[in-house]
């Protein structure tokens, strides 16, 4: 399976993402610059964390108008897996691929530590390698992860099982419903504030994030590879 790691000016988790796919997952990955106009050669799209365009105006608001985003929208419509982590999540929100918006963390602090995440929905192409209510250890590193949406959207998210990850225990940023990650209604676009690509090796604290990438590959194999 071949992944595109989209690189914006100011992305800074692109190398971690590439490392997770190439070295830990053992699949193909390529860096793709933000002005690329063709993503048809990739099976999965990864939007890494960072501070695209210096977080000017609002996090993700400028990156959302990059050339490559038209292609990301197309890939999402085609049903390809699209994962946005941290700033990548913010870009997906600004692009309207996911509902809602991000506010400053409630305590106004940049939070950087490992948190427990509850797997609320293991029936997605991103989470099939986890079990329901499993608690996984994944690092967070953000100043604007305070997810917000109106009541109608929140009820829809709940009704459609689009809330995939919630924070266990203390909510680090004040997000509505303890939300840490959500998918679109179709289930092929996931945005999450915590960084699974930073938790792919037990030597570095946790390998719990690797299952997320393994889930994506399993989904792709099940739908694309015909075994004799």
């Amino acid at each position: 399976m071949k992944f595109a790691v989209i690189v914006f000016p100011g992305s800074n988790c692109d190398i971690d993402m590439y490392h997770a796919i190439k070295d830990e997952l053992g699949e193909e990955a390529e860096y793709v610059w933000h002005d690329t106009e063709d993503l048809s050669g990739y099976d999965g799209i990864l939007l890494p964390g960072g501070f695209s365009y210096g977080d000017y105006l609002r996090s993700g608001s400028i990156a959302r108008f990059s050339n490559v985003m038209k292609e990301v929208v197309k890939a999402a419509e085609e049903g390809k897996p699209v994962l946005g982590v941290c700033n990548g999540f913010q870009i997906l929100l600004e692009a309207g691929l996911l509902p809602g918006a991000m506010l400053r963390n409630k305590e106004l602090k940049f939070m950087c530590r490992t948190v427990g995440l509850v797997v609320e929905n293991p029936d997605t192409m991103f989470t099939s390698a986890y079990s329901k209510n499993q608690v996984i250890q994944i690092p967070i590193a953000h100043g604007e992860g305070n997810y917000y949406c109106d009541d109608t959207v929140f009820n829809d998210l709940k009704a459609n099982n689009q809330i995939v990850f919630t924070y266990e225990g203390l909510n680090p940023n004040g997000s509505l419903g303890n939300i840490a990650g959500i998918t679109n209604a179709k289930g092929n676009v996931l945005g999450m504030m915590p960084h699974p690509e930073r938790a792919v090796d037990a030597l570095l604290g946790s390998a719990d994030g690797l299952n997320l990438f393994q889930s994506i590959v399993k989904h792709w194999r099940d739908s694309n590879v015909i075994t004799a």
Partner: protein
Amino acid sequence: MMKIKIHVTLRESVLDPQGTAVKSSLHAMNYHEVQDVRIGKYLEVMIEPSDRPVDEVVKEMCEKLLANTVIEDYEYEVEEAVTQ
């Protein structure tokens, strides 16, 4: 040339964590008159009018990029700027 003065603020229904912190600080300084603080952005956009109505252009820019209408409201005023 026209100067468009745009204010972008968080919607009333959205809690403003920065405004809340500033309010606490003002209270700590004994400004007990302060009831609420909300922090927003102020933008000045210089526009050379085209064949499209200015209001239409400004609203479109605000809705597409300058404000995120999920969490923010915007208002603007148009000022005729002096040409150099």
